[in-house]
């Protein structure tokens, strides 16, 4: 493959290809390949191979009987993909996932930025608060889900008791379908620490002279924020935007722990918490519809790639890299 690419298409002088190949006479080359070998094997057997297999499986009836060898694996054509568009549960799971992501990403970014900006102006005392705000991030998701169930319990939970103190009748967060996702969003925003630390680091990288120059020009605090802070930290904003979006699309553990019992039929699980990754998991490893689940995985992959590409394209207009484009 490589030989075709270099000797066949390279328009440069022939010596370039020869030089490329002469590299294989060097000991350094073979040492490098030996160092890379574990990753390359993993790439073949745990990434590239499974990807091809997954694409193949998505066009077959592969399931529990095929694993056991009772029935042959047969092609079903594009049936799974057509089913994706006709399945109510898929539509529901996609809607849940999008709604959750659309709430969670902006909420996390805004809270993280506000906290980071306050921290960046209190000097030395910032350290202890940075630690405190980071701590929820080290809470295992399963533990966070348990905390969600107990603290947001509609009758006895601490959250509603606290709301009562200020005269608000809190909703039944964990049972009312319209409050299940908002409470999961609040849980996500609680572990805002990582995003905040990224913003804090970016804010410290903004040259102080820019603010001074803007102040001399009479720029208001809002103008300084909009025209200095935001452009200067836009790479960090962009990075977290993409990472948080992908995390939102793949949300699994908290909602699964809180609302989906192992071995339960799912009949008692609320529809409002059925995220795409949860439905995919159930199709694959509870119902063993591995062919259909593979098609689901590819749909998620295509959605993720499309959204990321849109984000990259749109943000190209807004993201400012200090020292030129990378």
């Amino acid at each position, binding site marked *: 493959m490589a030989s075709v690419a270099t000797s066949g298409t390279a328009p440069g002088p022939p010596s370039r290809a020869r030089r490329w190949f002469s590299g294989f006479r060097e000991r350094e080359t073979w040492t*490098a390949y030996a160092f890379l070998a574990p990753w390359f094997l993993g790439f073949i057997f745990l990434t590239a191979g499974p990807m091809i297999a*997954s694409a193949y499986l998505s066009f077959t009836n592969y399931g529990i009987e095929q694993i056991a060898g009772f029935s042959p694996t047969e092609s079903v054509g594009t049936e799974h993909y057509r089913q994706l568009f006709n399945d109510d549960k898929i539509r529901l799971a996609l809607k849940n996932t999008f709604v959750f992501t659309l709430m969670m990403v902006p909420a996390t970014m805004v809270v993280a930025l506000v906290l980071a900006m306050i921290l960046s102006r209190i000097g030395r005392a910032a350290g202890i608060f940075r630690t405190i705000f980071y701590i929820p991030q080290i809470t295992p998701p399963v533990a966070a889900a348990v905390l969600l169930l107990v603290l947001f319990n509609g009758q006895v939970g601490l959250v509603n008791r606290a709301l009562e103190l200020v005269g608000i009748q809190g909703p039944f967060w964990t049972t009312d379908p319209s409050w299940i996702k908002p409470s999961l969003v609040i849980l996500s925003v609680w572990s805002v620490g990582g995003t905040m630390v990224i913003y804090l680091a970016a804010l410290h990288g903004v040259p102080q002279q820019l603010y001074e120059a803007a102040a001399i020009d009479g720029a208001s605090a809002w103008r300084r924020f909009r025209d200095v802070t935001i452009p200067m930290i836009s790479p960090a904003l962009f990075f977290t935007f993409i990472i948080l979006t992908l995390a939102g699309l793949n949300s699994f553990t908290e909602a699964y722990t809180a609302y989906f019992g192992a071995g339960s039929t799912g009949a008692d699980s609320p529809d409002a918490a059925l995220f795409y990754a949860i439905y995919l998991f159930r199709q694959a490893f509870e119902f063993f519809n591995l062919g259909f689940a593979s098609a689901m995985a590819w749909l998620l992959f295509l959605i993720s790639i499309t959204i990321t590409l849109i984000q990259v394209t749109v943000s190209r207009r807004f993201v400012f890299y200090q020292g030129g484009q990378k």
Partner: protein
Amino acid sequence: MSSTENLGPATGSASAPIPQVLREPPRARSAAGGAKKVFWIALLAGLSVLFLYPFVWLISASFKPQDEVFDNRLIPRTFSWNFDEVFGLPDAPVLSWLLNSLWIGTLAALGVTFVSALVAFAFAYFRFPGRNLLFALLLATMMLPPQVTLIPTYLIWNELGKFTTEHAWLPHIGVNTQYPLWVPNFFGSAFYIFLQRQFFLGIPRELFEAARMDGDSYFSMFRRIALPLAKPALIVTFIFEIQAKWFDLMSPLIYLRDQALFTLPLGIKTILDRFGTGGGGEGEWQIIVAATLILTLPMVVIFAIFQRYFIEGIATQGRKG
């Protein structure tokens, strides 16, 4: 926690490439700024309660009897030692789960740290044909969502399991063993390779050349020069992976059937299902919250020890954006 001590610029010397965040920003403030600062600190202190109180609640509730778990008192009215009950549950070997998680996490983190360093060093130091192509491949795999490879990977382990059962002289590896949870780490991980490569690129090349002059082989140069210098990046990798394994619920759900093999998150999930009200349990929440505390505390300890590396590691991720 000794967080304030970590803030001084002195820490900067330990790891040159990343510690920007730990340094105090150079800001001179007037007296008027002082009053503002007090206001901000008061506000942050208030917010801190929101961030920390769930933990305080969890600790407090873990020491309450069943009928007082939800009384939301800070100090338990009746003190109850629930941990004997948690560790003595029938069909729920919590101590084994804790040890399983520790052992799997440590092994996985050691593997991924060492192998990723090896690969990262190769990409950073060696000049060889195909380097750019392979590195592009590596970057591409970072974007891949895990679901696409999940099912075939499961099938591979399933086939391995069948094969090793048929050939009894082989050790039993496959589904319903713990191997699928840590063996893949010994193939490195694209994300950590990328992180460490950045670090290796920051080390002056002359240091390696000097070792070569002294007659070191490539590998001993890697072991004697590169690894010790990259210690901060290695520690970041190690603790991130420990955390990832400590958090992971999906892989144990997929691969483990025998209760004795469970990791702690999966174990706590089954305890929640068994004793919670959702799965038809009697609502013995004192067991659930005490078990959840056991799941949470080890991460708090690791964070207390390695706090600086957590923060630096996260901040570095953002900087490459």
